């Protein structure tokens, strides 16, 4: 029965992926992508990657979907836009190439060694020394902490890249358009009722990350989504990117991470090494410092380049 559910998931995933890439209508393609992300989260659950399922549901489906939905509406691409006609001569070679790549990858899947190489025993053996119980969090913040630090910095660089695309008069201004809604309408109501719940759920998913699936990225995504909901209802406005507090908040998390890294150089003899007995407090401190920065970065990445001056 499990195999049957898996097969069903596989067929649906492939159908939605084909729909996403081939649909005539841009909007329908984006909608297909969002549904596809939700299905992918189910597939990750079946591959016992609950942490990844959370990330996929939050970032892969939710945030990316919103980003593309916004872009599609800003581009006015309603209908087919006559797109698919230009490159019909490319179709056959492209199909052949794609089939060849898929075939080669499938051969690789079936040629994998009988006893898979795995680092799971090493992680299981060293998990106790980190004092956290979620092995993924242990890998992210103890065994491979450098990756996570650089990931946080990549997000910052992406944000700088997005901001630098603003036109000269709007540099330093507010990202996105000013949104309005009826003060007593249902949208404003939604934006008042959902965020408190979402913030509690986001904090819970962040907090549970030390011992169970969850963590700062997933928590920060939910918090960012709730912030955007408030902005969409016009209950608040996006801050101008010139503000000093905003920039300080953005870099505070990564800076705290780096500071802990240098602390390790002093106390434990290596960059990002944690002194004995302080592992879990330090991991939680890093996560707590990263949470607001990540929330802001994710939200601002979605809002895009500044489009207005500083005046609301």
């Amino acid at each position, binding site marked *: 029965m499990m195999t049957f559910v898996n097969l069903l998931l596989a067929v649906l995933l492939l159908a939605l992926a084909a729909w996403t890439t081939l649909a005539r209508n841009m909007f329908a393609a984006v909608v297909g992508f969002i549904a596809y992300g939700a299905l992918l989260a189910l597939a990750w659950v079946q591959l016992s990657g609950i942490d990844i399922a959370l990330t996929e549901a939050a970032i892969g489906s939710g945030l990316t979907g919103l980003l593309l939905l916004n872009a599609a509406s800003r581009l006015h691409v309603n209908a087919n836009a006559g797109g698919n006609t230009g490159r019909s001569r490319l179709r056959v070679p492209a199909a052949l190439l794609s089939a060849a790549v898929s075939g080669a990858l499938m051969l690789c899947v079936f040629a994998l060694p009988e006893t898979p190489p795995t680092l799971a025993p090493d992680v299981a053996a060293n998990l106790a020394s980190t004092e956290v119980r979620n092995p993924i969090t242990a890998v992210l913040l103890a065994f491979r902490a450098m990756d996570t630090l650089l990931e946080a910095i990549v997000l910052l660089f992406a944000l700088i890249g997005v901001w630098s695309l603003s036109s000269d008069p709007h540099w330093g201004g507010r990202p996105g358009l000013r949104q309005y809604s009826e003060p007593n309408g*249902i*949208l404003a*109501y*939604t934006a008042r*009722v*959902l965020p408190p*719940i979402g913030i509690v*759920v986001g904090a819970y998913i962040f907090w549970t990350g030390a011992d169970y699936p969850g963590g700062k990225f997933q928590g920060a995504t939910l918090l960012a989504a709730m912030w955007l909901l408030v902005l969409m209802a016009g209950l608040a406005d996006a801050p101008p990117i010139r503000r000093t507090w905003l920039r300080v908040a953005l870099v505070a998390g990564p800076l705290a991470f780096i500071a802990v890294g240098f602390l390790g150089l002093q106390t434990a003899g290596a960059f990002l090494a944690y002194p004995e007995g302080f592992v879990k407090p330090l991991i939680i401190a890093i996560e707590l410092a990263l949470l607001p920065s990540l929330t802001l970065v994710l939200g601002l990445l979605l809002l895009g380049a500044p489009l207005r001056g500083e005046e609301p």
Partner: protein
Amino acid sequence: MRFPDTLTRLHALTKADNLGLGLVVLGLVLQAGSVAAALKLICVWLLLLLSGACVSQLIARNTRERESRP
């Protein structure tokens, strides 16, 4: 088609949202391991009830405005 326009389809959808998920949750609550787990399942259902109510209102209003426009 049995549900000819968007509003009737929305009507059908909310039944699936509220009642269908409610019944699934009800079934799972009966065999949940602990009281906390059962309460969490009910919370998921309540959250979807609330967000579903808000979203269906929004979509319905959006549809009405779209249709009242020439």
